[in-house]
């Protein structure tokens, strides 16, 4: 579904990604982790073209994201993205947040969009807040709405950029539960940048470990945790698994 070949990226002279090659098959859940500054957020933003790449190729469902003149708006409507800071549109109600792109990008009718909106909000447990504004919701609530908003586009794959990093601890579980359900019940293809190792162990098929812009390890979840092959990965795991 998602394939990356030898992706390299520079900000000016500074190289942020070095020869990254990996893939996420249909229905797979891949967790991308690593120390801060390792380029994991940048990597995931390249998948839907939010960040351009200077070298390498990325294809999603066969379409080349990195090709010159690629129809990105079309592609993006098929990939859902959830951000660290939720990024709900503050000037719109929860309902309108979900309906906007459905109507304007997918061309659905208002009735269709609202029906889909209600279904998804019920699913993430936010149906009672449908008329509220993002400013009136807690972080966990906003992120669940954000996930529903991404799902409203009926995407073929979902990208998560540190979805729980900005949340207070007591709200992390409600968001992760939604994500676990998505992986297990819907069989959604997911690429998740996260530090939540519990989540990874529950649903991730593979773990990609990055450090300083390069993919250092790319192995099935259990193998990664039981026996990381690189020193850097061992070091990283020891630091985060101790609290």
């Amino acid at each position, binding site marked *: 579904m998602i394939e990356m070949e030898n992706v390299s990226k520079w900000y000016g002279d500074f190289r942020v990604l070095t020869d990254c090659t990996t893939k996420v098959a249909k229905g797979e859940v891949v967790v991308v982790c690593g120390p801060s500054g390792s380029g994991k957020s940048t990597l995931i*933003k390249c998948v*839907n073209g*939010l960040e351009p790449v200077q070298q390498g190729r990325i294809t999603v469902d066969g379409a080349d994201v990195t090709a010159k003149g690629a129809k990105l*708006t*079309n*592609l*993006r*409507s*098929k*990939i859902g*993205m959830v*951000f660290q*800071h*939720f*990024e*709900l*549109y*503050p*000037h719109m109600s929860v309902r309108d947040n979900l309906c*906007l*792109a459905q109507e*304007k*990008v997918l061309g659905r009718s208002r009735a269709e969009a609202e029906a889909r909106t209600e279904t998804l909000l019920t699913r993430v447990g936010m149906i009672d807040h449908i008329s509220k*504004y*993002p*400013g*009136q919701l807690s*972080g966990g609530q906003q992120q669940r709405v954000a996930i529903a*908003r*991404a799902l409203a*586009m009926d995407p073929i794959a979902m990208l998560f950029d540190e979805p729980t990093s*900005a949340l207070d601890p007591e709200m992390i579980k409600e968001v992760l539960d939604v994500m676990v359900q998505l992986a297990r019940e819907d069989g959604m293809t997911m690429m998740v940048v996260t530090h939540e190792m519990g989540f990874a162990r529950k649903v991730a098929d593979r773990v990609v470990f990055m450090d300083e812009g390069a993919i250092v390890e790319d192995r099935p979840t259990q193998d990664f945790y039981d026996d990381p092959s690189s020193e850097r990965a061992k070091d990283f795991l020891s630091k985060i698994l101790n609290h």
Partner: protein
Amino acid sequence: MNYNWNWSVLFEPEYFGWLISGLGWTISVALCAWVIALVVGSLVGVGRTLPNRLVSTLCTAYVELFRNIPLLVQMFIWYFAVPEMVPEEAGRWMKRDMPQPEFTTAVVALGLYTASRVAEQVRAGIETVPHGLKSAATAQGMSIAQVYRYVLLPISFRLIVPPMTSEFLTVFKNSSLALTIGLLELTAQSQQIAEYTFQSFEAYTAATVIYVLIALCATVIMSLLERQTRIPGYSGKEN
């Protein structure tokens, strides 16, 4: 200090009429110029934030040009110089047949000048919208036009209502410059009354009181607008 006070002179029908007429011109010039300023200023302000280099450079040039020349000079150029610089036909029309030349010129000059200030406010507003929101909208597959129309502009216009209040008020104050090209707006009329009656203190006080009332009205209107358009729970900062 020898001065003869006579406040009743303000209420004599003739002079009172002058004040009202002046007020009428002040309000007309200010409102018409404000409309031009909003339309042109919004376009130019958005233009400055677009990725297209040519457009953003032209818009920046507009802002710098109109911002760095005093309004008085601009007004004189529109009134005296432009009719001489355009083709004969247009020039003659401007000097003879154009209706209300002082009013029209004042509106155009004030409108385009204020537009450059509005453009800066609009630009600042757009740049204040957190980058993540633009990413979120782009990630959903919206085109640049859609991102501006549904996310960037609605949010930034709500954010800039407070500073725009100040610009709105400034337009009323700057309308006084129209007196230099012969428009008998409020300040000009108060000067007229002062010259005719020698009751300068009273005349200027009348104008001052009226301007203060205009300022109060403008502030009330804008704060009502701000309350109407406020986004619940949002102050424009990163969460």
